[in-house]
């Protein structure tokens, strides 16, 4: 039975709600930074009078005198109070109290968070919230990162920046994730927002070094320019040299993903001219010799991305080279290290002087072995975040477990991301980490083989786990010791880890695993499934059992229309559902679209499939106040 569910008006607020409790989104895949420092939440503005002549189209001079109605006083008081409210959840709740609170909350909100750029239109958002200083927008779904979606699907920044250019002249911060941003967008941004301070682009594309040059030259108040895992085209513009020679306010500059060479002299000048610079993340075109020069100039850095960490070609034989150890020793404030993009392991010991202070270390591009790692990691007693390649093997992980007792987040990436190879890390490493790092909150672990026992052990040893993402790279691999499915392991995770909100499963999984998730995963918000399950029951368990589920991404699993329909009661509470290469028919998707008018149901077709195919390639659906978007490419049909 299909119920015709109409969303409450409060659902529009849920679109502005940040799902994650922590300041930094847990599905943020950026280079690590200490937990205490985030890119987010510029402090809310405090004004002496709520209705005074604030910036922007606010409530400044009134053309004619209006006697203040009795509630006006209360409203003014409320405005003063609500300025201090930072949490989005609280704000959304406040806005539901009554019209007056709704109005005042809208006036006092300064951080706008939109988890799905298509859930609400720029016009609607900018009409309601008129005094925004900081905007966070997320676009494409995560599976698009893995080539599961054709290019040019959407998530364009252009309509947003156009709308904001007119309504938010005082905008200071833009944070985008998985959006398409053009050079023109960046130019408009640079021109329109005179006090612009922070630009953070995560997994974005569509722009190049010419766009960066415009931002560098026009945004005179720029404090943060962070490009993280974004694709930047090489327009052969020396963008670094576009920063003003007279000095900058830069506090953070991250360009490790920019694949184009840069003019080192310009960079050196920039660092010299940026006395507030605390975070510098270089790309792989900066040699270790050049890094040395920068470190000598800026020993006060707290976050350093080391670039290639190997010498450039013309290093004389037998020459001593600069004293890298001293350079690191002089940088007494470094707490976060990353880079090592082309590391020659000989140079690794140079970082020893800073190890004891490190809270965050990203070796995930460094092909180092256990024997390279051990002398370094044994000094990293304060490490909280560690990203590494599986080249360190189980032995390396054991060394981590032995020393890093404060570890909160571990990510082990595969050096060789193929399915049918032996793989250097296994349940041995996972078990060791679970025993040594009891405070672990977040783990991402790629491996070729795993056992239920190790996963169960982790569920018991690490009760603080919030994020558990295990990727057994061979599809549908069972426990390699017992031959059993991995159901019990993941079952233990949801059962024992009471704080778990994000889960990614893999290996051979039957419906039983999903029964566990549905039964115990009561606060799970994000679930990622691939090549798993036996029948519709699997998905039903999850949709019926997990009331907090927000983001569900499924690929290549045998879930069909009946399962899809079992979630009707819940889809308005979700940010999105992605299902690709499952067993959904057009009719099934159509039924959903008809039952839930505020849901945008996108069917994405891959090139080589025929229209007559029984199953839908990809279903991507999300709640929205706007209905069908107007920038739909030809391979998408909206039901």
């Amino acid at each position, binding site marked *: 039975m299909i119920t015709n569910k109409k969303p409450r008006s409060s659902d529009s607020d849920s679109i502005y709600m940040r799902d994650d409790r922590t300041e930094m989104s847990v599905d943020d895949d950026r280079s690590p930074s200490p937990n205490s420092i985030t890119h987010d939440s510029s402090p809310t503005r405090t004004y002496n009078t709520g209705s005074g002549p604030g910036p922007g189209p606010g409530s400044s001079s009134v053309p004619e005198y209006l006697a203040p109605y009795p509630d006006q006083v209360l409203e003014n008081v409320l405005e003063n109070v609500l300025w201090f409210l930072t949490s989005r959840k609280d704000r959304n709740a406040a806005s539901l109290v009554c019209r007056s609170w709704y109005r005042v909350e809208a006036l006092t909100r300064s951080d706008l968070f939109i988890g799905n750029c298509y859930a609400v239109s720029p016009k609607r958002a900018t009409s309601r919230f008129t005094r925004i200083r900081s905007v966070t927008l997320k676009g494409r779904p995560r599976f698009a990162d893995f080539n599961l979606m054709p290019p040019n699907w959407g998530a364009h920044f252009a309509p947003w920046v156009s709308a904001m250019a007119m309504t938010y002249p005082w905008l200071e911060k833009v944070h985008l994730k998985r959006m398409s941003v053009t050079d023109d967008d960046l130019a408009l941004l640079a021109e329109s927002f005179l006090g612009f301070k922070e630009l953070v682009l995560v997994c974005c594309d569509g722009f190049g070094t010419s766009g960066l040059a415009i931002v560098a030259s026009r945004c005179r108040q720029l404090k943060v320019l962070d490009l993280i895992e974004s694709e930047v085209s090489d327009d052969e513009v020396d963008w670094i040299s576009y920063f003003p020679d007279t000095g900058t306010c830069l506090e953070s500059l991250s360009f490790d993903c920019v694949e184009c060479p840069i003019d080192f002299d310009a960079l050196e000048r920039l660092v010299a001219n940026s006395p507030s610079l605390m975070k510098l993340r270089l790309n792989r075109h900066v040699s270790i010799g050049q890094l040395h020069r920068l470190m000598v100039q800026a020993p006060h850095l707290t976050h350093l991305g080391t670039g290639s960490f*190997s010498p450039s070609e013309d*290093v004389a034989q037998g020459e001593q080279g600069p004293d890298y150890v001293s350079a690191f020793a002089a940088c007494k404030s470094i707490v976060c290290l990353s880079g090592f993009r082309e590391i020659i392991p000989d140079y690794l010991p140079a970082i020893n002087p800073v190890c004891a202070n490190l809270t965050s270390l990203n070796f*995930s591009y460094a092909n180092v072995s256990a024997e390279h790692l051990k002398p370094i990691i044994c000094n990293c007693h304060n490490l909280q975040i560690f990203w590494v390649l599986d080249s360190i093997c189980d032995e390396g992980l054991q060394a981590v477990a032995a020393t890093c007792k404060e570890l909160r987040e571990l990510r082990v990436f595969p050096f060789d*991301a193929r*399915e049918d190879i032996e*793989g250097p890390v296994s349940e041995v490493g996972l078990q060791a980490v679970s025993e040594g790092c009891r405070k672990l909150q977040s783990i991402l672990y790629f491996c070729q083989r795993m056992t239920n026992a190790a996963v169960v052990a982790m569920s018991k040893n690490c009760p603080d786990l919030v994020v558990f993402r295990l990727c057994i790279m061979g*599809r549908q691999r069972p426990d*390699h010791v*017992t031959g059993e499915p991995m159901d019990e392991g993941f079952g233990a995770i949801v059962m024992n880890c009471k704080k778990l909100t994000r889960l990614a499963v893999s290996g051979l999984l039957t419906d039983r695993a999903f029964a566990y998730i549905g039964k115990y995963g009561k606060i799970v918000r994000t679930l990622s499934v691939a090549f798993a399950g036996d029948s519709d029951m699997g998905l039903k368990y999850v949709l019926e059992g997990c009331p907090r589920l927000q983001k569900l991404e499924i690929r*290549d699993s045998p879930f069909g229309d009946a399962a899809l329909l079992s979630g009707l009661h819940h889809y308005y509470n979700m940010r999105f559902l992605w299902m690709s290469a499952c067993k959904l028919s057009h009719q099934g998707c159509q039924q959903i679209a008809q039952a839930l008018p505020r849901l945008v149901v996108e069917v994405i077709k891959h090139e080589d499939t025929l229209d007559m195919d029984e199953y839908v390639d990809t279903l991507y659906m999300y709640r929205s106040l706007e209905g069908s978007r107007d920038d739909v490419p030809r391979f998408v049909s909206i039901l």
Partner: protein
Amino acid sequence: MSPEDGSNLLESDAASVSFKETELTLGLPGESRGLALVEKTSGKRGFLETVDLNLGRSSNVASDHNKYSGESEADVPNMAKPPAAKAQVVGWPPVRAYRKNAMKGCKYVKVAVDGAPYLRKVDLEMHNSYQQLLNALQDMFSCSSFTIRNYLNERTVMNQDVNNGVEYVPIYEDKDGDWMMLGDVPWKMFVESCKRLRLMKSSEATGFAPRTPSKCSSSN
């Protein structure tokens, strides 16, 4: 299985077949129960460039997951694959293209040439065989007229006129700190154990007797 095992193979015939024999053999769990069509494969990381390795197994095993109960050797990885095509699946494993590309160039070692003032570095991951590496080195130092003695095939790589140029012998330092001749171990093993390269003048290569043809590696 650690790469250090490789050094023990130096004395034996390092042809690819015997290398396979000395590796841990891997099979499906339940192999002892006599499942048909179980293929033993060697699974050293990266060794499976040769696409012809038959990783197939009887298709009924795939659909009947219950057959996986029962004991298997302790560290026998499961080579199970779904009955679908063995081709790699789009977007799996879920590693971003950015990261995959970054891994492509990831094993840099310094190259020193006797008599040349500057060190170079070369990315071993970029090459698939000794021949390719030697060609690359030849290109890299192309301004000097020298040849590299190629023991693999018992003939010099490029410049046949040995009298005009200086002949160099390529050697490398392995994980244990020993200097070895190139070509003794299979390529992949060399990549993992090589710490740095040196092109040594032949005239100084007294400690490195040329290998006899029968002992040359025929791999790659």
